[in-house]
């Protein structure tokens, strides 16, 4: 009994020692920032030679910084620092190990055009993500998303000479909507303040509606089905109008931020206009009203597709895709009116031929 107690004591002691040992030698971000907090370059580096400094404050605000991801969690081939050496770690480091956490994204990327570009090696994560300062993209607009990603390398206007009105398309549609056809996409309604050329803060928006984020649907969704119908959307617009809230909804088509969004395609990208420009296009099925708090937290509320096909969203019209049915009914009535008058007149004219014939003979 005494012997087994001794073994247990030894074991616990060894465990505590090993924990304290590794804690003492764990590499923290602060260790790295001793050198990397200032911009600097190293010619002897075999990987990146420039831009080796990291803005500590920006990193802390990044999605990785906020989640306490340390430098060596990604730069995993640094296992120890020899602080007495001129360079405390190897100068021959591999790229950051993003796939160790983001394996689904890596798998999708491997099936994308970016995995095997024609004139260069595979596109690295950081080339798009600037990964020391990755921020959440839910609140980003089409312009912000494409500007921060695709437009770094690609000029959509030059690459789509066949596309009519490319500026209009690219101001509304995010590249992956067409270039990752397997990824879900949705229509985003963002309240826009034209006077200041910016989307209105969600806090201001819900305050104008006399509620908060949690109470928003109970104010707007009168039917209680958790979907803002076209008529409820219209009422909401009138209410904003009554409260003198200047603005309109900007309509955007965004890709859902799923790992699969990395499977960017070139040859199989959607090019057929009818995919969107069709009365039964799937691209207008998922519509959400999007608000974001001052800190960027997104709030989404489901909106019925019919709202897109109404004058509530008078600034947006996708030919055939979001047409207003009542306009067509009115148009067909105008057409039927013309046909009806002609048909009636012609009928009477034919029926009265004998009368005119008789008059002529006299």
């Amino acid at each position: 009994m005494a012997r087994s107690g001794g073994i247990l004591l030894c074991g616990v002691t060894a465990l505590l020692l090993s924990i304290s040992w590794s804690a003492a030698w764990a590499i923290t971000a602060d260790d790295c920032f001793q050198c990397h907090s200032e911009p600097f370059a190293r010619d002897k580096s075999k990987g990146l030679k420039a831009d080796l400094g990291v803005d500590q404050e920006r990193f802390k605000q990044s999605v990785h910084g906020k989640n306490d991801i340390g430098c060596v969690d990604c730069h995993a081939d640094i296992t120890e620092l020899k602080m007495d050496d001129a360079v405390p770690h190897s100068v021959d480091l591999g790229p950051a190990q993003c796939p160790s956490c983001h394996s689904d994204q890596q798998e999708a990327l491997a099936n994308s055009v970016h995995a095997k570009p024609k004139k260069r090696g595979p596109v690295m994560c950081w080339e798009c993500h600037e990964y020391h300062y990755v921020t959440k993209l839910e609140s980003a607009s089409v312009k912000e998303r494409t500007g921060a990603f695709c437009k770094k390398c690609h000029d959509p206007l030059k690459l789509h000479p066949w596309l009519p009105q490319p500026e209009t398309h690219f101001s509304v549609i995010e590249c992956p909507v067409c270039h990752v056809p397997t990824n879900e996409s949705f229509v985003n309604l963002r309240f826009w303040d034209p006077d200041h050329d910016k989307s209105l803060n969600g806090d201001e928006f819900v305050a104008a509606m006399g509620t908060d984020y949690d109470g928003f649907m109970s104010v707007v969704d009168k039917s209680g089905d958790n979907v803002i119908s076209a008529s409820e959307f219209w009422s909401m617009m009138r209410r904003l109008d009554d409260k003198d809230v200047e603005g309109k909804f900007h309509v955007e088509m965004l890709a859902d931020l799923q790992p699969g969004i990395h499977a960017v395609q070139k040859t199989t990208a959607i090019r057929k206009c009818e995919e969107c420009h069709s009365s039964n296009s799937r691209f207008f099925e998922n519509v959400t009203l999007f608000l974001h708090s001052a800190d960027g937290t997104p709030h989404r509320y489901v909106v019925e597709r019919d709202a897109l096909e109404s004058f509530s969203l008078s600034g947006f019209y996708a030919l055939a895709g979001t047409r207003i049915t009542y306009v067509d009914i009115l148009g067909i009535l105008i057409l039927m009116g013309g046909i009806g008058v002609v048909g009636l007149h012609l009928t009477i004219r034919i029926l009265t031929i004998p009368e005119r014939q008789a008059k002529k003979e006299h």
Partner: protein
Amino acid sequence: MSEKHMIYLHPVPLRIWHWTNALSFIILFITGIQIRFSGHISLFSFQGAVSTHQFFGFVLIFNYIFWFIFQVVSGQIKNFVPNLQTVIPASIRQAAFYGYGVFKGAPNPHHLSPDNKYNAMQQQAYIAIMFALIPLQLITGLCLWKIEMFQPLISMVGGLKIVDTVHVLLFFFFMAFMITHIYLATLGATVLAHIKGMITGWEESH
């Protein structure tokens, strides 16, 4: 047998304008239906329909400018100006003819001449069509052709859907107009008198 009285009513430029207009309208109707009801109708590809619609839209614009200049330079534009003192009774007489007299074989109260081509009802209809509705259709068409370029104008009138609604309702109106126009063209001195006149320039008087 009464001798036919022929008058030269439609000079060559006007006839070229008319038939170019007619062809353009028909193509714009067909492609417009394809564009508007894509998903329900598949006569052509959407892209093909849009390109063709745009091309003939521009044909219509240049044709309109040509027509307008011709009307002003030749002085024919005066044909559209109603006599304010007689327009109301003349319109009533003309409406009575179309709604009753024509069935009874009554003579057309309007007498054609190169300086008096349109009856009072035609004058009013053509003033509205040629100086308001066609320009409106062309301008809304231009807005839809290049949204970015015409965004200030689009925003001023309330947004793209407003512009589109005007364009589409006018589209249906012009389809109805063309049907009515073709039918009314059979109400000349003979069934084909007006149509022949628009081909040869010479028209049999009422």
